[in-house]
Structures are given as structure tokens and as C-alpha cells.
């Protein structure tokens, strides 16, 4: 049969390398290249990217050199030391613990939980939405009833109860507990787009080309909703930092002896701290604001990169 094609086309094996080189020269840039161009065109986003990447790297590496149990030891001599005094860069809290060191370890914990939660819940939510939307019919019906049931559960209450039941929980178990409840929004969003997307002709064309359902879902449809996935994931990462922080603030997140952004912000529960000892809670609050803003900037750039009509970066 190959002979059949050779007969009717002037192109033979001899031309292969020459022609593919010609084609390479004309090739469209890769998506990583497009995203990078987009960052270069948008200075604030570039700054945001440097802040987020730099900060996460710094926190991850610096916390390796900090002994958490030592940091969390009470040191009455440093009771509410002001920033700069006694060699404490950001001062100390009511137990005389260094705020700067708590901030580094706490950020590692909070960002770690947020990252883990985002990876687990988004992956699960995306798969759930894609499969539910693509197959439609009975599978969709069943999967949506599970979704409805999960939505019906009061999320915060359930997490608080689970945290109370489970004795020795740590960052990993907490991440898993959160993950049970945070995939629903993503799955519904992805499902609705998948429903629309799987009606398009290219899916039908893939079916007639003999591609398996699994491949159509993850190799054909998923790349086409990637902009939605990326935006949703970055935004939910920013949101997930808030999830852990909020619960720790309420006292149901990480144990007291584990520093996190939430436990540091909960210093603001005390009116004295708010008015006099601002250094106990303000750095953590500022950090969350800056991180979340930067992440949403990055998310916007990636969304623009995915949509050719909105691009600001170099053309072609």
C-alpha cells in the first residue's frame, strides 16, 4: 500500500530530511516559548514570577537549616522583643520565639500544604470532570450524584471533626483531609467545558481515526481546555494557601507546635498584639497578600499565552 502513495506523489524517502528541515524552519514556537515571551512582555508579571519562585526556593532551602523544635522553645528573655533587638530580625512573640525563623518554617509548611492540596485535588477534580463530561449518560449521572453528595457535606465542619478524631495528625494527613473536600469546584468547571468540547468535530474525527476514549480524553480534549485548567489551578493554589491559614487561625489546622502562616496570623486574635506588637502577625499577613497577588498575576499571563488573541508577547 505504501507503493500506492509513492506512485501518486513526487516525494520519496530521499527528500525526507530536506523537507523536514524546511518545515522545522517554518515551525510555530512551542508553548513554553510563548509563555516565556508573554512574561517578558509583562513586567509586573515578571516581577511576580521572580517573587514567587524566589520566595518558595528561599523558604524551602532556608528551612532545612532551621531546627523547628529549637525555634519553638519558649525563651522568656525575649518576651515580645522588638524587631532588631537581641539579634532577632523580626522580633519575637509572647513566648520569645523568633518571628523570622517561624515565618520561614511556617511558610514552608503552609506553601507545602497548599501545593500538595492543589496537586491532589486539581488532578482528581480534572479527571473526574473530564470523564464525567466525556462519557455523558449513565456514567455522568452516577458521577454527578457523588459530586452532589460531597457538595452537600458542610466542608469546614467536616474538616474540623476529622481533625479532632484523628489523633496524631501532621502536615501530610491534613493535606489529605483537605483534598477529600476541595476537588468539587474544579470537577464541575472542567465537566461543563468537556461537555461542550466533546461535541466538536475533532473528537468525532478522532473517533473515526480509531483513537481510544482514554486517549481522546487526555490527549485531545485536555490540551484544549488547558487554559481553563491552568487558570483554575493557579487560582486555587492562591485560594488553598488561605484554606490552611484560615483553619489554623481558627485553631483547627496544624498543631500549635508546628509553625504555619495561619498560627502566626492568629497572634492577631489578641488586641494587644494588634496595637502594640504588630511584628507578631503583620509579616505573615503581608506575605500571604503578596504571594496570592503574585500568583494571580502569573495565572493571568499563562491564560493570555493560551489564547492567541490576547497575547502581548513577541509575534511569531
Amino acid at each position, binding site marked *: *500500500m*505504501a507503493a*500506492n*502513495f*509513492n*506512485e*501518486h*506523489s*513526487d*516525494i*520519496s*524517502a530521499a*527528500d*525526507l530530511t530536506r*523537507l*523536514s528541515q*524546511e*518545515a*522545522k*524552519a*517554518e*515551525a*510555530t514556537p512551542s508553548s513554553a516559548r510563548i509563555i516565556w515571551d508573554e512574561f517578558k512582555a509583562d513586567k509586573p508579571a515578571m516581577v511576580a514570577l521572580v517573587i514567587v519562585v524566589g520566595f518558595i526556593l528561599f523558604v524551602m532551602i532556608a528551612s532545612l537549616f532551621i531546627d523547628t523544635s529549637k525555634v519553638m522553645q519558649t525563651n522568656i528573655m525575649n518576651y515580645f522583643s522588638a524587631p532588631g533587638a537581641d539579634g532577632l530580625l523580626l522580633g519575637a512573640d509572647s513566648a520569645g520565639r523568633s518571628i523570622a525563623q517561624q515565618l520561614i518554617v511556617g511558610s514552608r509548611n503552609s506553601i507545602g500544604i497548599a501545593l500538595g492540596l492543589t496537586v491532589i485535588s486539581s488532578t482528581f477534580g480534572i479527571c473526574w470532570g473530564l470523564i464525567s463530561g466525556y462519557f455523558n449518560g449513565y456514567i455522568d449521572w452516577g458521577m454527578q450524584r457523588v459530586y452532589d453528595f460531597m457538595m452537600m457535606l458542610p466542608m469546614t465542619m467536616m474538616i474540623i471533626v476529622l481533625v479532632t478524631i484523628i489523633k496524631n495528625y501532621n502536615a501530610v494527613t491534613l493535606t489529605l483531609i483537605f483534598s477529600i473536600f476541595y476537588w468539587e469546584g474544579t470537577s464541575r468547571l472542567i465537566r461543563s467545558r468537556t461537555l461542550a468540547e466533546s461535541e*466538536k*468535530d*475533532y473528537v*468525532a*474525527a*478522532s*473517533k*473515526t*481515526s*480509531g*483513537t481510544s476514549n482514554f486517549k481522546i480524553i487526555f490527549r*485531545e480534549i485536555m*490540551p*484544549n481546555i*488547558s487554559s481553563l485548567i491552568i487558570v483554575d489551578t493557579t487560582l486555587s493554589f492562591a485560594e488553598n494557601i488561605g484554606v490552611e491559614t484560615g483553619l489554623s487561625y481558627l485553631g483547627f489546622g496544624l498543631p500549635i507546635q508546628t509553625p504555619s502562616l495561619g498560627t502566626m496570623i492568629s497572634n492577631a486574635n489578641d488586641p494587644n498584639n494588634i496595637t502594640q506588637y504588630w511584628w507578631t502577625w503583620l509579616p505573615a499577613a503581608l506575605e500571604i497578600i503578596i504571594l496570592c497577588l503574585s500568583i494571580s498575576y502569573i495565572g493571568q499571563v499563562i491564560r493570555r499565552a493560551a489564547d*492567541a488573541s490576547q497575547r502581548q508577547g513577541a509575534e511569531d
Partner: protein
Amino acid sequence: MSLVEIKDLKVHYPIRSGFWNRVTDEVPAVDGITFNIEAGETYGLVGESGSGKSTTGKSVVGLEKVTGGSILYNGQDITKKANRRKLDYNHDVQMIFQDSLSSLNPRKRIEDIIAEPLRNFEHLSKEDEKLRVLQLLDIVGLDADALYKYPHQFSGGQRQRIGVARAVATNPKLIIADEPVSALDLSVQAQVLNFMKKIQREFGISYLFISHDLGVVRHMCNNIAIMNRGRLVEIGTRDDIYNHPLHIYTKRLLAAIPETNVNQRAAHRASRLAVEEVYREQQDKYYDDEGKAYPLVAVSPTHSVALPETIAKQLAQQETEVQA
């Protein structure tokens, strides 16, 4: 034996309503049609929008769940999924879609799009596969630099030719062309149609050519079936349909073809109005009590029309007299 034999094909869509969401009624999109496609020919399927011609095409390629009837390919009923898989059916039967933009995945490069059926059915080596893609691009008149581009970088006509290249990739025996040129302007239409004809000559492919454009169908097809409200109203050769139409619906479709002869304008208008007059007065004669077409009746070896036998004979008689 014909390449594909369609027997009493039915595709009904359920209407669900009420509290329990039960099936309360059905839309008969395709309601019992029978025709055969011979190897190497172009079979035209014509009708207004909503007449069920696209549904028929999708059933033949295996995209639509069939309610009743059978589609025989090599003697096997391919309305069953197991049979399709056993035969590697889509290796032999491919489809060209109406909307060239939405039928090409916007996130894939042209190489991957055209190679998709090859990867699933032929498992060539990397070099052979690339060579085949380049040859296919050459056959549809595109340059090699299309290889690593994305669909949105091409014009409508180029995109449709990429669609044709993908359909031809596995060297199929039958291609369902679902209004392949209706979204293109006239000059590009001719270009794509000529590529399709060229490929048919070279590879001996059959087409099921679905269209509402009778001019295009006349250019492409030897045998034509006219569809109306989910049923066939007339089957015949090109000559039968264009020169001796019997059913009023065929006559109306033909009357709707625009004529460019300005001098004859009044005459054309009069003939169109005459057809419309007949339709209005004699509608009951051509459709049964439910407003559907009658079963087909043969009036000559090639020509069948959906009318009660007496009327069909009488009309055929009239037609031959007019000719004489």
C-alpha cells in the same frame, strides 16, 4: 456485491420529559432508508437541512447509534461495535467533516493530525510515517512547511484539504464527505472538489457525498438519492434525477437552483411558480396521511420514486410522453 449495503436504516432520537424523565416520544431523524454504494463511485445524498442526511452519514461511519436496520460492509453488520472493531472498520471507512476548523484539533500540529489514523491503524516507523504525511500533503497540494503548523494558520480551503488528507491517510475504501465544501467560497469549492476527484481516480475510493447543493452534486456524483423528512423520496442516476424528476420534492429542489441567464428570467420565474403551485395543490398525493414519503417504487431499473404505484406509473408515462 455492493461495497456498502444500507437496509432499512433507522435512527430515532428519544424525547424525554415529565417528572421521571421518561422517553415520551421520538424524533425519527432517519426513518427506514435503503440504498447501496458501489465500489469506486460517488453516491450523492441530497436534501434540505434537517432531512437526516448527516445522521445517515454518521451512522455509516459508526459515529451514531443506530435504532434499527443494518449496514452491511463485506457482509458484516457494522452497526454493532464489536463488528466494527473486528474489521478495523475505520481503517476502510473515513469521514470528511463540514466544518474544517472544528474538525481539526486546534492544539495539534498538522503532522500529528494527519498521522493520527496512521498511528492507530498502521503502526509505521517514525520515518515512514513522516514520509507518508509529506506525501499526503503533496497529494492535496500543500507544501512541506505545513508539517509543524497549527490549523488556525491555514485558510478554509487549505484546512479542508488537510481534512481530506487525513481521511485518505489509511487508503480507505469509502469516505463519507459530509457537506465538505458548503463552508467554502465558490473558487475554493472547485479546488477542493477537484482534489477529491483526483484522489478518487488515483486510489479508487468511493464517496458518500452529502450535500444540499445540487450544482456540486451534479459535478461529483453518478448516483443520487434525495432525502426528505428522514426518508428517501427519489433514487436514480444523475440523468434520472436532473432530467426526469418525478417526485414533487425533487422538482422543488431543482427549481431552487439559481439560473444566471438574465434573458430567461421571466420564464424561470414562471416555471418555479408552476412547481410551487403543483406542490400546494397536490401535496396529499405525494405524501401519506402523516406527511411522510411513501415507500420507494421502481419506475426503471435505475430510477425509483417514493409514490403509490399507480401515480408513479402515471407520472413516468407523462414524463416519457413529454420527452417524445
